[in-house]
Structure formats: structure tokens, C-alpha cells
């Protein structure tokens, strides 16, 4: 691996950017591996990286039906925070935020993690009470989160209009350690670092079935590029998890919905933090390129189309124009959708499946980018030990049978 540093950038810059090597090999599938990860998003690539780095596995493949990072990893609004209500969630998401804090150094790749703060607006008495409950619960769990009055919120984000609007801002919760990162860089950084440890990254390779041995354990995959054998397989396929698990007759507590985002034309730096409103449903931050990045809601119905209804994004833009009247004159450049896998309690699943040797990381729904390094790290642990790490132990498939839901759905109503 060609390492990046200020010096190498300068040297290549002065020599016309020649001499850079591809950042990962274009691998051909081998007949067998020690472990296979299905899905080349940030979660899957990260799991392969941690399997090689922390658990010493060497013969690992990531198989991706399209191109790496082409799924939700490359389609999300990149909000990162860990101020979730329940103890299990706070531990899980904060594990991830801690990994984010050193990820660029760890991967020798600038993932542009920026702890610019995430502000979550409260517009009703109920919002205020729920936000404060979150703040107290977070503090008890050692997760930073503070209450801001409308004036304090405006001091951090001067563009925010707090009164004379349909739903005046009554205050906000602010997590200063939250922020954003560059989504593509996360996929590429993990891919490059995993490749350097010998991981084969196999693109344009769709999994179409699973091989089982005589005991019913998983033994490999059937793909559009032939059969590949492995005794341990991790599925990290976001919106397509139900489709894959169906191939081994496992029904998942998941439904797949389109979720949309939009970006505006680029403008000068004007927006210092992330602002989210669950009540009037809009999310906004500014990318380092200057675009305003805006998140909308999910469509009402399940779908695999990777596009959503226009009335959904229109609704988000109406909320943005209300909160930030100066954005009324911004033009939107692009809009797109991704397919998110939603669980009944809006918490993820990182667990063993009923099929021995088959593991799953899914159910991140509308909010799993923030969890990329954490989920990847815990999926790798679960595969290596054939047992979950204490942090992901509560996030099973069986929690729905056993009545042990981690009900962030009821806690937040929406979760990005």
C-alpha cells in the first residue's frame, strides 16, 4: 500500500500527480476463503478489515453485486451522533463514535470526520420533555448531550429561525461530539486498508444462493461469478438482507423502504453544524464542497426501487425553507434514494443466525452510517468468536421472540 502523507501529496503534486497506484486490487474470486462478507458497503468492507486486522484471518473476500460504496454508504446524509436513549444503544453508537475519532489515522485515509456538532430541534412540549429525557439518560451513560435555549441554538447556528414560524423552536439538544464524515472516503479507506491486509474485494458479483453442508451449516455462496466456498459468511447487505436470508429460509424482522436525500448547488461556508428536526422532518448540513445536504423521509410503502416520491422530498424542503428562509432561493442539484432495512424497534441486528456459520449485520434502517466502524468491528468479532461481543449481544434476531426490544422507535419516532 502506498501510504499517504503531506510529503507524498506534495511530491506527487509537483510531478503532475503521476505515479499513484490503484488503491485496491481488482480481485478475481478464488475457489475458497476462510470468511466471506456479502455486501461491499462501509459495514461489509470494515468487517473484512477488522477480521484481518484484529482477528488474524487472512483469506477473506468481500463480494459486492455492484460497485463498492454504491449502496446506502454512498447515498446517505452522513450524520454521526450517539445520543440514543437506551443503555444498549448508547454503548453501541458510542463505540462507533470513538472509532470515528481515530479512523483517519487508523486507515491512513482522510475520512473527513468533522465533529461540528449535531443539533436536534424541539418544537413542542413533548419534544422538550423527550429531548431532556435523552440528555439525562445520555449523561448517565457518559455520552455528551446538552440542552440549548432557542437563543443558545441561534448563537451556534445563526441562520436558524426560531420564532414566527409554524412550529417555533422551543430549544434543542446538542451533541458536540457528533458531526459528519465523507461517505465515499469511508468505503474507499476501508477497502484500501483491507486490500493491504490481503482481503479480496470482488465487485460485480451477486450472491444468488448459499451452499450448506450435511449438518445444515453454511459452506459457501453461489454467485453470478461462480461458487465460492467458506465456512463463515457475514451478510451486510442493508436493504437486501431479507432477500438474502430468504435463500436459507430465514424470515427477517425487516421491511425495506426508499429513503431520499438531496443536495443543493455549492455555496460558501455558511452552516456550522448539523441541524435535525424529527417533528417537522428535515435534516441539513453543509458538505466540504459547499453543497447543502438535505435528508427527507421514507416513503410509506416497502420498495426496492432506489427512488422515492416527489411529495416526500418536497415536504422536507418546505421544512428547511421554514427554518432557514434564506435557502428558499437555493437550487437543488441532485436527488436520489436508497433502500433502508427497518426493524420493528428501529434498532439494528448484529448477530448469529439460525444457520451455523452465517452471521448478519442489518436493520440499520435510516441511521447506520454513523455506526459504520462500530458495526463492522462488532460483526468481525462475532464472526471470529462465533459469539457476539458484549456490546452487540442484545442486538439479536431473537429479541423479537423474547420480548426484549430495544425500542428506539418509541423513544425517538425517527432515527437518523
Amino acid at each position, binding site marked *: 500500500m502506498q501510504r499517504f502523507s503531506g510529503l507524498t501529496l506534495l511530491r506527487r503534486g509537483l510531478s503532475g500527480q503521476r505515479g499513484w497506484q490503484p488503491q485496491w486490487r481488482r480481485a478475481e474470486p478464488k475457489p475458497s476463503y476462510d470468511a466471506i462478507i456479502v455486501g461491499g458497503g462501509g459495514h461489509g468492507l470494515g468487517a473484512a478489515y477488522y477480521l484481518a486486522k484484529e482477528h488474524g484471518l487472512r483469506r477473506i473476500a468481500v463480494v459486492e453485486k455492484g460497485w463498492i460504496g454504491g449502496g446506502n454508504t454512498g447515498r446517505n446524509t452522513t450524520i454521526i451522533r450517539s445520543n440514543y436513549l437506551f443503555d444498549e444503544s448508547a454503548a453501541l453508537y458510542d463505540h462507533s463514535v470513538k472509532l470515528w475519532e481515530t479512523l483517519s489515522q487508523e486507515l491512513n485515509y482522510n475520512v473527513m470526520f468533522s465533529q461540528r456538532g449535531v443539533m436536534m430541534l424541539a418544537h413542542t412540549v413533548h419534544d422538550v420533555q423527550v429531548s431532556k429525557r435523552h440528555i439525562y439518560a445520555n449523561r448517565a451513560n457518559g455520552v455528551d448531550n446538552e440542552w440549548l435555549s432557542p437563543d443558545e441554538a441561534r448563537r451556534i447556528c445563526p441562520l436558524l429561525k426560531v420564532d414566527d414560524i409554524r412550529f417555533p423552536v422551543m430549544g434543542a439538544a446538542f451533541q458536540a461530539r457528533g458531526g459528519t464524515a465523507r461517505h465515499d472516503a469511508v468505503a474507499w479507506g476501508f477497502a484500501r486498508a483491507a486490500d493491504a491486509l490481503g482481503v479480496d474485494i470482488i465487485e460485480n458479483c451477486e450472491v444468488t444462493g448459499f451452499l450448506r453442508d450435511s449438518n445444515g451449516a453454511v459452506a459457501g455462496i453461489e454467485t453470478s461469478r461462480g461458487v465460492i466456498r467458506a465456512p463463515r459468511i457475514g451478510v451486510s447487505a442493508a436493504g*437486501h438482507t*431479507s*432477500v438474502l436470508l430468504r435463500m436459507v429460509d430465514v424470515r*427477517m424482522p425487516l421491511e425495506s423502504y426508499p429513503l431520499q436525500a438531496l443536495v443543493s448547488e455549492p455555496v460558501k461556508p455558511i452552516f456550522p453544524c448539523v441541524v435535525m428536526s424529527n417533528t417537522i422532518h428535515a435534516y441539513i448540513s453543509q458538505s466540504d464542497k459547499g453543497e447543502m445536504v438535505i435528508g427527507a423521509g421514507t416513503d*410509506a410503502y416497502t420498495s*426496492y426501487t432506489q427512488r422515492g416520491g416527489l411529495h416526500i422530498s418536497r415536504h422536507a424542503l418546505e421544512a428547511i425553507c421554514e427554518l432557514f428562509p434564506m435557502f428558499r432561493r437555493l437550487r437543488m442539484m441532485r436527488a436520489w434514494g436508497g433502500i433502508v432495512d427497518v426493524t420493528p424497534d428501529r434498532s439494528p441486528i448484529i448477530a448469529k443466525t439460525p444457520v451455523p456459520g452465517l452471521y448478519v449485520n442489518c436493520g440499520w434502517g435510516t441511521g447506520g452510517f454513523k455506526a459504520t466502524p462500530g458495526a463492522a468491528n462488532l460483526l468481525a468479532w462475532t464472526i471470529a468468536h462465533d459469539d457476539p461481543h458484549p456490546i452487540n449481544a442484545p442486538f439479536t434476531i431473537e429479541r*423479537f421472540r423474547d*420480548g426484549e426490544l430495544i425500542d428506539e422507535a418509541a423513544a425517538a419516532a425517527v432515527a437518523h
Partner: protein
Amino acid sequence: MLLINCPYCGERPEPEFVYGGQAHIARPTDPRACSDQQWADYLYLRDNVKGVHNERWRHTHGCGRFFNALRDTTTDRFLATYEVGHEPPATLKGAHS
């Protein structure tokens, strides 16, 4: 935005409707006789089909009635809508998954 053909009122825009999830899931008649797994299946497990999906809609801002639909989740195209208590149209039944 989808155009949805309510079997009672005809074609109307999507915001008049509320989605009701997978169709033809019957509540167990005696919940106490169910195992935990059977009850969890009823509450939480869905087919989440990539392809033709059997689903319920309610024409909330219209006639107010529930009805069933067959929709292809890879295109969002409706193949049929039909009244509650009926099976999907026979010609499309093969697609019922």
C-alpha cells in the same frame, strides 16, 4: 407519487391513502395457544418481497375503506387492487408470494 386505483372510488393520488403493510396476515384466533415464536411471526416477521407484493392500503382521505393490492416492489407498478376478503385476481395468483 403513486396513482392508486381504489376499488371503490377509482384512481386517486397517493397522499389520499395510508399504507397498511403486508396483506392476508390473520391474527391468531387464540393468542394464548401460540408459542412465543408464532406470536413473534405474527407481530414482526414480514416477507419483504422483492417482486410482486400483496399489501393493504386504506383510502383514508376518501371512502375510508381498506382494500388489497398487488404491487411490484422493483418498479412500484400496481398489478391489481381488490376488495378486502377476496383473493388476488386468479390470473395474477401465481405471482402471489
